[in-house]
C-alpha cells in the first residue's frame, strides 16, 4: 500500500472507531452535565450493556434488533434502579462520595457479570459480511462502517432530543442551572432518571457496536479508559466538543498504531491519547471546547 493510502486507511479506520467512542463518551457527558457526577464505571456499563444484548439474543433466540430492544429495556431498568437505590439516597452527600460509589459499582459490575452471564456468549456475532469493502482502493471492514453509521445515527437522534424536544430542553436547563430549572417547574429527580435511562440505552448500543467493530479485541470495560481523554479534551460539558474529541482520539490512536507502534513494539497507541490529554491540561485545563468556569458549583 502506498504511503498516502496507508495514512488514509488509518484515518478512516480511526474515525470509525471514533464514532463508537463518541457514544460511550456521550453516556458519560449526559450524566456529568445533569449532575456534575463523574461516572468512572462508564466502561463497565458498556460491557454489561453488550453482554446483556448477547445474552438476550442467545436466550430469547431473537435476531439482532430483538436482542437490542430487550437489552435496552433491561439496561434502562438497571440504570433507573441504580439512580433510585444508590444515587438518590446519596444526593445530599459530597460529589466525591458519589464518584467513589461509581468506582465501587464498576468493580461490582465486573464481578457480577462473570457470574450472571456465565456460560452465555460474550458478544453478538456481527450480522454484517466479513469481507472488507474496497472504497477508493482502501479496504474498510463492513462491520466498522455499519457500526459507525449506527453510532452516527444515534448521535444525531440524541442531538435532536436535546435540542428539539421539550424533555431535552428541560435536561439542558437542569444542566445549566438547577435553581432556574426548579423555578420553571422542572422536576429534577425525574430528569436525573431520564438521564440514567439514556445511559442504559447508550450502554447497549455502544457496547454492541464496539463488539462488532473490535471483533472482541480488548476487554470492553477498558473502553471506559478511552473516554476520559475524550471528555476532558471535549471540555466535559460540551456535547459537540465531545463528539469532535472522540473522532480526534480515534484517529490519533489509529495513526499512532500504524506508524509508531511497529517502531516501539506496540501498545503506544493506547498511551498516545493520554499524552495529548496531559499536554491539553497544561495549556487549556478546561479542554478544547469547554469553558473556563466549568467547575463552578
Amino acid at each position: 500500500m502506498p504511503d498516502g493510502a496507508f495514512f488514509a486507511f488509518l484515518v478512516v479506520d480511526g474515525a470509525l472507531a471514533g464514532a463508537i467512542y463518541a457514544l460511550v463518551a456521550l453516556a458519560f457527558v449526559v450524566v456529568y452535565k445533569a449532575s456534575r457526577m463523574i461516572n468512572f464505571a462508564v466502561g463497565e456499563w458498556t460491557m454489561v450493556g453488550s453482554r446483556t444484548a448477547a445474552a438476550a439474543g442467545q436466550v430469547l433466540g431473537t435476531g439482532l434488533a430483538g436482542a437490542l430492544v430487550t437489552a435496552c429495556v433491561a439496561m434502562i431498568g438497571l440504570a433507573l434502579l441504580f439512580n433510585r437505590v444508590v444515587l438518590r439516597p446519596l444526593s445530599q452527600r459530597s460529589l466525591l462520595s458519589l464518584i467513589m460509589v461509581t468506582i465501587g459499582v464498576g468493580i461490582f459490575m465486573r464481578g457480577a457479570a462473570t457470574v450472571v452471564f456465565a456460560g452465555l456468549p460474550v458478544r453478538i456475532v456481527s450480522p454484517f459480511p466479513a469481507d472488507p469493502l474496497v472504497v477508493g482502493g482502501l479496504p474498510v471492514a463492513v462491520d466498522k462502517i455499519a457500526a459507525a453509521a449506527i453510532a452516527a445515527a444515534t448521535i444525531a437522534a440524541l442531538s435532536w432530543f436535546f435540542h428539539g424536544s421539550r424533555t431535552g430542553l428541560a435536561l439542558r436547563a437542569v444542566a445549566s442551572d438547577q435553581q432556574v430549572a426548579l423555578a420553571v417547574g422542572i422536576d429534577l429527580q425525574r430528569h436525573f432518571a431520564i438521564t440514567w435511562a439514556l445511559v442504559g440505552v447508550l450502554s447497549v448500543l455502544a457496547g454492541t457496536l464496539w463488539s462488532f467493530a473490535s471483533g472482541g479485541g480488548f476487554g470492553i470495560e477498558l473502553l471506559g479508559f478511552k473516554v476520559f481523554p475524550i471528555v476532558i479534551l471535549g471540555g466535559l460539558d460540551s456535547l459537540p466538543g465531545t463528539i469532535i474529541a472522540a473522532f480526534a482520539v480515534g484517529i490519533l490512536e489509529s495513526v499512532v498504531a500504524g506508524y509508531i507502534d511497529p517502531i516501539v513494539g506496540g501498545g503506544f497507541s493506547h498511551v498516545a491519547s493520554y499524552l495529548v490529554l496531559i499536554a491539553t491540561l497544561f495549556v487549556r485545563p478546561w479542554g478544547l471546547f469547554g469553558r473556563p468556569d466549568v467547575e463552578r458549583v
Partner: protein
Amino acid sequence: MGGLEGTPHLLEIRDLHVSYGRIRALQGVSLTVPPAGIVALIGANGAGKSTLLRAISGVVRARQGSVSFLGEELVGLPVHQIARRRLIHVPEGRGMLARMTVLENLRLGGLAARDRRDAAADLKRAFALFPALHTRRSQLAGSLSGGEQQMLAIGRAMMARPRLLMLDEPSLGLAPLLVREIFRIIPQLAGEGTAVLLVEQNARMALQCAAHAYVLQTGRVVLSGPAADLLAAPEVQRAYLGTG
C-alpha cells in the same frame, strides 16, 4: 386590612416566619392577594421583601405559618411543584440561563403551563409584549442588556400563564426609560387578568400602579391599605418617597 374582606383570595399568607440561621428575616407576616390586580410590597433594603417572595415560591422554607394558594397549602411543597401551580417568581437578578437562547429561555417558561398546544400562542403573546425579544430570539440570553434580560424574565414567566406573577425588583439597575417601560407593561399584564405581587424599592412607581400595598419593616408588616392611601400617608412619604 381594609377593602379585601369578603373577596376570595388568590394568595393568603398567615403568620409567616422565616429565619436564616439566627437571623429572623420574617416575623409573622400576614397578607392577601386578590385574584386580579397588583399588590405592591415596599420597604427598605433588608426588610424581608425578597425573603417573603422566596418563602412563597418555596426557595426558602418557612419555619412557621401558612401560605395558601387557591385554598391549597404551599409550605413544604418543592419549588417545582409550586411553579407547576402557575405561581411564578421572577427573582431579583432575573434567573436567566445565560448560555441558552432567548427563544429557549421562553420555551422553558412554557414547561410549567403543561398544555403544549398553547405554547405557540403564548410565544406570540410574549413577543407582542416585548418586540425586542423577537428581534433577539436567536441570541444567547447572556448577551442581552439588563433591560432586555428583565423583559425576557417577565416574558418567560408569562409563558407559564401565571395565576400569580411575583416580581422582585423589576426596575433594579435599569435606565429611567426602561423603568418606565417596565412599569407600563406590569399594569398591562394585570389588566389582562394576571394577579401581580410586586416587590419594589422604587416605592412611588410601585404605589402608583398597585391597587393595594403592604409596607414591610424588619420582617413585619407595619402598614397596609389601598395604594393611593399609602401614597398620601405622611409616614410613607417620609420614609420611602423622600418627600413630606
